[in-house]
């Protein structure tokens, strides 16, 4: 997940945001007051206009001071009842139908959790926003049209209470819908992702074991195999002799696989070519010494065992009898002295009849655990990035390799150039006994090579207060993307002084006041590593996925509240269809707020609308510069004027995309509480002026006209 724009911490964001908000609010107040005065001047003349203006301000002060929570709540409850009457439950039915049929269209992929989470939230967002928009946009105009507003405004109800009640009521309706849909989605995602595998007995490969007496302990991998296919994926797994193992990651998850390693006799089979030979198969590799002793394996009610030998996989013992074995009559019993190679005794069954069929391939009991790492809430700690240039001088940015995308800058290979991240808040409490670094490194190549060839780099941990205390550079290879996660254990080799090697403690030696530096260099000459601040993060202990889900749902509610506030305010002066249109336009612009801001700030090629028209007319491409001529001056002046208006509007446009925190959830990242707080404050920052503006619009409207 690439974070191109990171939100500042609340403490940094709030003062700056507050100042900007006050400026914008003051500008709007001045503009609105001027406009209002002008209209009043035209209609009533200067004396009356001034009086009306003052009266309005005095009234407004009195009205806001007389705000009654009881009245607001009454109007909110009325809005809720109205919504329920308007059959908003239909939205739930549509959502339920979507869930029911989604299984047909949503299939697996590399990351099914992401697919399901994003799909569910997109449907939910669209449905809830649509319902909220429709109920909000029809409410006040319907009250005015049916004149029910007469019985409300003739009570001591202030105009802003009418708006606040509706905003709160419809927001609660949206919250209720969202909660139900998100709850169903939570269950749906859990059920869709939950699946079982069994061990595919036909796809076993026993690994070659060390010979008797060779190193063999519980951690030795003894078998590998496949888990059965579930949905559209399966896993390969390997097991240690102790019966512990894991399935490899597929479809974004893995499973724990365990096996009961108590040895069992799988069966005994008479050799079809020589009836005096009986093959006894065990479920586990057996101790070859004990299993090769004829006295430990006896036939009951049949010929005596002359000799015993064990196969190379230590699972099959071949017995040679005095006389041919009789299928069904001859029983092979195994003494307690025969144990598995790990010394575990046999399970209770100690004798089996001789059969003429192959014993089952495996009689072991496996347990395949639930999918792991599907629904996570990883807690990344981001640092601040600075650069060293090729001479080792500090720089705020690295080398630019082109202006197409300004996000990353580059460090040159085999020089002193480096990217240095400083992470804060690195404590044992948050991280445990090790550090896990995840890093994305883009590669810019200056000479031809194989595109899939990796480029070597190094990572070093460093004490920010004493850069001489640093670990030895660790190599990594980048293939122009995320590198393998780097785990740094508690004890690391490094230097505690120039040239003096020492064993360093991660937290005692390398971390100073919770800070640690990570230095990344490119090790290959004429190659460049592209990095940005958000490309590296340390993973702290995971947080709760469920809580993360709740937060992303709440973050989704905030733009819906914004939609409601915009729609309700629009209806104070506009009819339902026009309000619907106006709100929709505002929302669409809000979705492309970034683009609008770039356009307004003249950051895009091709200029403004007049320049674009001129280019079209003259068949000029976007990069071609305009001639220094009279039309150019006129065009630029006209575009500048439009851009100035757009710039003003872009400051007021809600950036709706910034509310979309579902990508965090879907990618398994924790949504910081501060982000949610900032988004909530942004919402309040919009709702307050909307309600205030709506108050004046409704207050100056003749509802009976």
């Amino acid at each position, binding site marked *: 997940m690439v974070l191109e724009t990171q939100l500042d911490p609340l403490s940094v964001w709030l003062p700056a945001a507050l100042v900007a908000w006050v400026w914008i609010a003051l500008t709007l107040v001045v503009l609105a007051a001027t406009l209002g005065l002008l209209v009043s001047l035209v209609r009533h003349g200067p004396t009356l206009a001034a009086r009306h203006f003052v009266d309005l301000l005095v009234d407004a002060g009195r009205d806001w001071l007389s705000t009654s929570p009881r009245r607001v709540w009454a109007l909110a409850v009325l809005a809720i009842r109205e919504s329920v009457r308007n059959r908003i439950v239909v939205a739930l039915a549509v959502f339920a139908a979507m869930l029911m049929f989604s299984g047909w269209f949503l299939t697996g992929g590399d990351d099914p959790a992401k697919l399901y989470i994003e799909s569910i939230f997109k449907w939910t967002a669209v449905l809830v926003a649509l319902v909220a928009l429709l109920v909000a946009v029809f409410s006040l105009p319907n009250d005015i049209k049916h004149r029910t507003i007469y019985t409300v405004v*003739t*009570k001591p109800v202030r105009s802003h209470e009418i708006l606040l009640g509706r905003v709160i009521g419809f927001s609660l309706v949206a919250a209720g819908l969202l909660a139900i849909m998100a709850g169903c989605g939570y269950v749906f995602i859990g059920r869709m992702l939950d699946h079982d595998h069994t061990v595919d007995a036909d796809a076993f490969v026993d690994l070659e074991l060390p010979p008797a007496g060779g190193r063999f302990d519980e951690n030795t991998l003894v078998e590998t195999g496949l888990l059965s296919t579930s949905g559209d994926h399966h896993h390969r797994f390997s097991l240690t002799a102790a019966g512990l193992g894991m399935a490899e990651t597929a479809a974004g998850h893995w499973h724990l696989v365990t096996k009961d390693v108590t040895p069992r006799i799988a069966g005994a089979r008479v050799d079809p070519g020589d009836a005096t030979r009986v093959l006894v198969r065990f479920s586990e590799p057996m101790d070859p010494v004990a299993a090769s002793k004829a006295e430990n394996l006896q036939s009951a009610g049949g010929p005596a065992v002359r000799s015993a030998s064990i196969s190379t996989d230590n699972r099959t013992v071949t017995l040679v009898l005095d006389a041919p074995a009789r299928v069904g009559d001859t029983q092979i019993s195994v003494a307690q002295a025969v144990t598995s190679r790990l010394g575990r005794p046999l399970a209770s069954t100690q004798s089996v009849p001789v059969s003429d069929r192959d014993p089952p391939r495996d009689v072991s009991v496996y347990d395949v655990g639930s999918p792991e790492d599907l629904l996570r809430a990883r807690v990344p700690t981001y640092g601040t990035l600075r650069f060293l240039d090729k001479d080792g001088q500090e720089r705020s940015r690295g080398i630019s390799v082109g202006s197409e995308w300004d996000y990353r800058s580059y460090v040159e290979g085999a020089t002193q150039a480096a990217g240095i991240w400083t992470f804060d808040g690195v404590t044992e409490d948050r991280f445990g006994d090790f550090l896990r670094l995840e890093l994305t490194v883009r590669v810019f190549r200056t000479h031809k090579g194989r595109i899939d060839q990796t480029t070597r780099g190094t990572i070093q941990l460093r004490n920010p207060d004493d850069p001489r205390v640093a670990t030895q550079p660790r190599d990594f290879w980048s293939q122009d993307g995320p590198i393998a996660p780097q785990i740094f254990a508690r004890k690391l080799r490094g230097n505690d002084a120039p040239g003096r090697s020492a064993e360093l403690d991660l937290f005692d030696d390398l971390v100073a006041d919770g800070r640690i530096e990570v230095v990344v260099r490119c090790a290959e000459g004429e190659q460049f590593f592209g990095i940005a601040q958000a490309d590296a993060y340390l993973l702290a202990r995971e947080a709760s996925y469920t809580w993360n889900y709740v937060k992303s749902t709440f973050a989704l509610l905030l733009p819906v509240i914004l939609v409601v506030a915009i729609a309700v305010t629009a209806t104070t002066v506009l009819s339902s269809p026009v309000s619907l249109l106006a709100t929709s336009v505002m929302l669409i612009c809000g979705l492309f707020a970034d683009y609008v801001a770039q356009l307004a700030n003249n950051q895009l090629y091709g200029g403004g609308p007049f320049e674009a028209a001129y280019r079209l007319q003259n068949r000029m491409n976007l990069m071609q510069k305009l001639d220094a001529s009279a039309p150019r001056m006129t065009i630029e002046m006209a575009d500048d004027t439009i851009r100035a208006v757009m710039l003003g509007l872009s400051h007021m446009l809600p950036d709706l995309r910034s509310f979309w925190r579902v990508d965090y959830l879907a990618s398994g990242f924790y949504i910081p509480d501060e982000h949610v707080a900032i988004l909530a404050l942004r919402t309040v920052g919009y709702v307050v002026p909307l309600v205030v503006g709506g108050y004046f619009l409704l207050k100056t409207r003749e*509802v009976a006209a």
Partner: protein
Amino acid sequence: MSRKKDSAPRKPTPTSVDSANKPSDVVVATQSLSKVYRDFWGREKVRALKALDLEIRRGEVFGLLGPNGSGKTTTIKLLLGLLFPTRGKALVFGCEATDVAKNERIGYLPEESYLYRFLNAEETLDFYGRLFDMPTAVRRQRSAELIEKVGLSWAKRRPLKEYSKGMTRRIGLAQALINDPELVLLDEPTSGLDPIGTREMKDLILELKDRGKTVIMCSHLLADVQDVCDRIAILHQGELKELGRVDSLLKVRDVTQIQASGLSKDCEAEIRAVIDRHHGKLISLDNPTATLEDLFLSIVRDSEARPGKRANLRNEIPQPPASSP
């Protein structure tokens, strides 16, 4: 407005109107109040009210009379702040009519009961009670009393969309009284009501008057206005044509009316002779008729007293009260 079995409507009693002429007792005052309706472009469409000057005092029942489109409802809407005056002033309790705070002391029954049809009677009154910031206990008590008063106890849990027009008017009236207002504005209060409902509405208006409330009603049903109003203003095409006390406006000063009972034919002849002797002109001398409203109410009362029987009302129709000579 529960169905009481009392008889003829009580005549308005001249109360404090005459004595209450101190400026502080002026509840509603309009000064050159004018309203012009304009189109989207600001062009004049209709001149609905032209320089209306009125003063309505505490305890009065004031009627606004006039044909359709005469400016009655516009006046009420201006007094409520639903419309803004084009010129002039509308003062209610001494404040501008656009001041929301005045609504604390006002009750308003619109021409049609514009209520939320998905609420039932209890919810409706509870909602409007909340708008007056009334505490829960007060709200409940007041709602119960008003539902009882307007005779809707039996239907208080039914949503208003199932109500008949008369029932809707009743609950509309209840919401107008939820705050025990000092000033009640009634726009066509008897519209949609049956004769019993009409009578009860008129009784209620008089009851409000007895309790010292000020009532402004507008109607084009002249009989209703005559029955309950102390003073009336007659509007036509937005202009005030007549303003004054009902009794003095209606008094025909050069005609004398005598009503008596138990007179013989001889006595009647003697009266004719007396009028001739004094050079008077006899206009009529016959038996008076009751109003249709009185007849209807008597039939209903008789039907309730003797279910299944034909009405026998010969002696039950209330006689018109004797007017003063």
